[in-house]
């Protein structure tokens, strides 16, 4: 019966080609325009670690006091922490896992003389980083706590970096040189591009993850400065040791906490630390610290720009207009076939059968509409990649999920548009039509 219904739908599709073309075009345009905006919105608002995002907490410690940010009780603490506070968190070891980290950059070369040195972005972090953020490995693994303690010269490469340096082969055990210091490769990641780059949203929220990862402890010991965001509320003084004891904020700290009770305890710990700081005269304001899980952090950062949200809403409005047009066209087409529908009723088709056939007709229109919508979505995203800002450029891509969504949206939208016309058509009184033909 399915094949027969499809055959009938195809015949119906070919009838009144101008009306059919308008319907398909309306669906295609509506889906294309809305999916272009929705895909950008979806990519920006997606939670890249949804399965544990409620257990990962970004630590914000107010180190500068009321003068530093906005006013009142709702004043947010600074977005990053100083080295001293990062170490305070790491030494306390109160979370199930905890990491402090910062962005670095190195000139990188290998033993292969044919490989021209490149500048690679990196992340100096702790061993827990990989397990905490479920980072997938293609070869090898991350380092362990002993490597942190021992300031080992080990490195984990991203898939792209490994492709550049070792043509994608298993490079575990090989040597790479970071600013001419030899590091042993101990792991290579599978493609890992969390969007947004939730673990560091201090700038370039939708940038690529780093190309290499190395122990934070080694980086600090070797006085490696940050390649990321750095803010100071006072002159840190000369030299790296002075920088480390300054209140300059340049590091990110995350803790993994399994329960609300642990979260409450952890916040108490941060606040008690601030109180002690106040007692000792290091700060002169009340504790004002935060623990934000991944979604809260994304919300606070405003990871989805307002214009992207507005564009998504407007595009849905446009889709609605297209649907209303499609519904009108479908109704016109259905009513133009009244005599045929009347005949089918006379020959024994029930309303249910005609309704099902109508939905099959709509499914065929939706499929062709989806094809056009898919092409338009691809073209729209291509245009956004060329014209949008850096964040939009990074996410404006047509992935398999987006293609599936195009298909689903086209199908859903068309079926929705088809409901009324199909229902009306199934109600056509056969007797009124048969004599008139």
């Amino acid at each position, binding site marked *: *019966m399915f094949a*027969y219904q499809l055959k009938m739908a195809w*015949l119906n599709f*070919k*009838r009144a080609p101008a009306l059919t073309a308008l319907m398909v075009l309306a669906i295609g345009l509506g889906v294309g325009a809305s999916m272009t905006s929705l895909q950008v919105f979806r990519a920006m608002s997606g939670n890249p670690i949804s399965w544990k995002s409620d257990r990962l907490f970004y630590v914000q410690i107010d180190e500068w006091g009321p003068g530093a940010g906005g006013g009142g009780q709702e004043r947010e603490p600074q977005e990053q922490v100083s080295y001293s506070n990062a170490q305070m968190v790491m030494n306390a070891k109160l979370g199930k896992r905890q990491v402090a980290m910062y962005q670095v950059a190195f000139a990188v070369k290998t033993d292969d003389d044919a490989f021209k040195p490149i500048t690679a972005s990196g992340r100096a972090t702790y061993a827990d980083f990989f397990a905490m953020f479920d980072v997938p490995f293609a070869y090898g693994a991350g380092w362990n706590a002993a490597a942190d303690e021992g300031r080992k010269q080990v490195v984990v490469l991203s898939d792209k970096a490994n492709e550049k340096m070792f043509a994608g082969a298993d490079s575990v055990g090989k040597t790479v040189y970071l600013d001419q210091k030899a590091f042993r490769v101990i792991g290579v990641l599978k493609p890992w591009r969390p969007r947004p780059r939730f673990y560091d949203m201090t700038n370039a929220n939708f940038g690529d993850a780093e190309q290499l990862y190395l122990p934070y402890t080694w980086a600090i010991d070797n006085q490696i400065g940050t390649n990321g965001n750095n803010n100071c509320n006072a002159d840190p003084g000369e030299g790296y040791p002075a920088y480390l004891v300054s209140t300059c904020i340049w590091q990110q700290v995350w803790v993994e906490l399994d329960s609300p009770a642990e979260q409450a305890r952890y916040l108490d710990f941060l606040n008690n630390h601030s109180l002690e700081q106040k007692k000792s005269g290091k700060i002169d304001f009340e504790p004002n610290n935060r623990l934000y899980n991944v979604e809260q952090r994304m919300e606070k950062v405003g990871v989805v720009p307002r214009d992207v949200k507005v564009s998504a809403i407007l595009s849905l409005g446009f889709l609605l207009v297209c649907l209303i047009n499609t519904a009108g066209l479908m109704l016109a087409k259905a009513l133009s076939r009244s*005599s*045929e529908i009347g*005949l*089918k*009723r*006379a*020959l*024994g*088709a*029930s*309303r*249910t*059968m005609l309704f099902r056939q109508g939905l099959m007709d709509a499914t065929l229109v939706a499929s062709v509409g989806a094809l056009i919508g898919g092409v338009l979505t691809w073209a729209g995203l291509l245009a956004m990649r060329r014209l949008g800002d850096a964040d939009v450029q990074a996410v404006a891509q047509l992935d398999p999920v987006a293609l599936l969504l195009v298909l689903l949206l086209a199908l859903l939208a068309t079926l929705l548009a088809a409901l009324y016309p199909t229902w009306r058509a199934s109600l056509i*009184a*056969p*007797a009124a039509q*048969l*004599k008139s*033909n």
Partner: protein
Amino acid sequence: MLKMQALSKIYRTHQIETHALREFSLEVKEGEFIAVTGPSGSGKTTFLNVAGLLEEFEKGSYFLDGQDVRNLNDNQRSRLRNEKIGFIFQSFNLIPDLSLFDNVDLPLRYRRMGSAERQKRITEALSRVGLGSRTQHYPSELSGGQQQRAAIARALAGSPRFLLADEPTGNLDSQMARGVMELLEEINAAGTTIIMVTHDPDLARRAQRNVHVLDGQVSEQLKFVEAA
């Protein structure tokens, strides 16, 4: 076989009520060939529509093949129509972009009949009306008479107990009309009950009984031939 008793059918608009059938009573026996005549607007077609379960009625009773059809829902009426009634229309009502095979196939599809059985019935029905070699032709490739034959094949394919024909020769010239009429007589001789609405007194006389309808009522019944 078909029994209507004091049946009323009223068409209503916001301002007007039209009594298309009033206290309409008629009994048709199995194997009869009945011609229904009457002036335009007398209620002939309404009677045919009610008889064919295409329209409901307000009052009275209607038994089709012993079954009270008054309280059947849409699915039940559709099934009954599909299994027991064949329709022949003045304007043939073939679907232009379906081949003759697919046109005849329609009612069998609605009955969810198996492929082999459908194939057999379609071939037989088209052969019976002399179109066995034209199964893949489209309606536009046929003459009016041939199109009406194809429509008759469609009506016959489901082996209905009744054939309801509304002016089946109204769009045909006299020669083609004669051919269609002979075909209907042949079908009736094989046992199918036929009720035919016509304006043509000559055609009406070829039926076994002539039911004359006036103002929505049976005004006169003339019996020409005893049903076999």
